[in-house]
């Protein structure tokens, strides 16, 4: 295990962490403000990747594609909220699960009808393609550093929005005491509309950032959705801070675990046992982490409201 390898895996873990944070942020706010379980959040991640990929290819400019794609993702968020989600906000969780599952089927199959099952080409933008030498022996892709920078910037922006603005104050209050906020004359439904659409855009941004690294295909949102659930559960529902800490934790544990656990096992239990147990155990790590956290704190690390 060289220092360069360890460092690059560390960066990969952080980068997975910020992608997860972008997805989980919208999810946790929608949970928090409206006690709403939205399975279709992964679909918004997938749509973001498709929108940006298609619009970039059509216009020939990644910058335009990103800007237009994010606006389109935001618009789609508004449309979905008006068509589907606002009718479900005061229904029980089972119906929310059911309806958003139905929505996943409709949107995923819709995308498959239009674009097919094969992955859509989504090249890294030319200006950001290439590697940079961080130190002797470690060349790291520029695009992955860009993802890190964007993720941190959005996290800071969100922190300012949530902690320093009036809208953010309403979101914070709404996620812990929704009845009180409504009783004070705040239109919680309208607040939900904006939080939902904004969350959809953040998920779309995550999809666009991850697009060049993963394959852009109709079910790409599934894997991320479940990881985002794990993040939200560990961080505590409704907490942006919790989502950030948990996302980084999950990203690091998953990436570093997959990279080094098989090696570690080999030294501990021998080669043949490690070859079978290594991949199994490393794919279980984050779920074990979740189980561990919940054993001590059933409502997550920063979850204020016991659900």
């Amino acid at each position: 295990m060289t220092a360069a390898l360890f460092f690059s895996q560390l960066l990969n873990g952080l980068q997975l962490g910020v992608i997860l944070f972008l997805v989980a942020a919208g999810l946790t706010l929608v949970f928090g403000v409206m006690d709403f379980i939205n399975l279709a959040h992964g679909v918004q991640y997938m749509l973001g990747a498709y929108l940006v990929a298609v619009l970039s290819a059509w216009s020939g400019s990644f910058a335009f594609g990103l800007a237009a794609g994010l606006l389109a993702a935001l618009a789609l968020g508004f449309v979905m909220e008006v068509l589907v989600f606002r009718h479900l906000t005061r229904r029980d969780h089972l119906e929310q699960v059911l309806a958003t599952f139905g929505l996943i089927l409709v949107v995923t199959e819709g995308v498959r009808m239009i674009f097919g099952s094969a992955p859509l080409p989504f090249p890294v933008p030319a200006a950001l393609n290439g590697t940079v030498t961080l130190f002797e022996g470690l060349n790291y892709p520029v695009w992955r550093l860009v993802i890190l920078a964007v993720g941190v910037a959005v996290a800071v922006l969100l922190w300012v929005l949530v902690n320093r603005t009036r809208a953010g104050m309403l979101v914070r209050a709404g996620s812990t005491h929704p009845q009180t906020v409504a009783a004070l004359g705040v239109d919680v439904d309208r607040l939900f509309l904006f939080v939902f659409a904004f969350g959809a855009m953040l998920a779309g941004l995550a999809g666009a950032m991850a697009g060049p690294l993963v394959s852009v295909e109709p079910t790409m949102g599934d894997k991320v959705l479940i990881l985002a659930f794990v993040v939200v559960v560990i961080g505590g529902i409704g907490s942006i801070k919790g989502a950030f800490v948990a996302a980084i934790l999950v990203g690091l544990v998953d990436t570093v675990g997959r990279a080094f656990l098989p090696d570690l096992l080999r030294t501990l239990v021998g080669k043949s046992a490690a070859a079978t147990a290594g991949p199994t155990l490393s794919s279980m790590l984050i779920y074990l982490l979740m189980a561990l956290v919940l054993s001590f704190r059933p409502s997550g690390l920063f979850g204020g409201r016991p659900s």
Partner: protein
Amino acid sequence: MSARAAGGGAGFAFLFRPAVLIALFALALAVAVWSGSGYAPTIIARTAILALAAVSLSFLIGQAGLVSFGHAAPLGIGAYAVLIAGEYGVTNALVLFPLGFAAAALWSAATGVIALRTRGVYFIMITLAFAQMLFYVAGSLSAFGGDDGLGIAARATFFGQRFLRTDTDLAVFAIAALGVTLLVLERLSAAPFGLMLRTGRANEEKLASLGLDPFVHRLVALAAAGGIAGIAGVLLANQVEYVSPATMNWHVSGELIVMVVLGGTKRLGGAVLGAVAVMVIDETLGHFTEFWKFGLGLVILGAVLLRGADLTQLIRGTAHG
């Protein structure tokens, strides 16, 4: 439970009785065999197997209020029990069915101990996450086909007797298992055990104030439902003769919830009707287009959104906040 609890109205309530459901299944199978169709018994066997898994989930959701989004996990465990035992040369049904039941029940109880510490949305997400963990673990079992899965060695035997040779045999067996399950779970629901589960669902504070803790009851319910899903998994593996991680994909958990809710959660028989409905949508739309899930999605969305006129639902929702 009121007479017209589950959607259909009083006139159709008889449809939810186990005896009627099983009689209808048997009738369908008899017609299928008589008509000489080779495909119909396969469909009927599949429907009965999925209905078995859906009924066990309906027991959790309808009685205990535990919305498990990971019911594909015990189903998959049952299927993998067949595959793994078969690889070691064991095909005796007297081993496979208890093994599938026990392994799935054990998984459900072990994850349940952690999941039951939480409520509501957390419970849904944790059961989903645990099932997904098992999905990835199954994909990493390279000795048993990894991501692609593996064909099973042979269908289950009874001391060398191949009693599940055709899908008609399998359908008979699955329908019988469904009937026994419906009867047992209905008895269990009517017993003090079921009352405890329903009270825990309706008003946990009141139970606590009486000094009662439904934890053990819920854990037993989870284990029992998991075990039944394991039996369904054993049957499913025998029907498809192939086992892969796809059995545990979270979409399977979602589809099981769809069956339970479309049929109505108040009666166990509803899940059977839901399973039939999903299979019918699959078989009819599936013949026209490979995108049949688009249609299924629209049906689900329509069913949930149009039920908004239900007043009791609205009142209960606002009371919840």
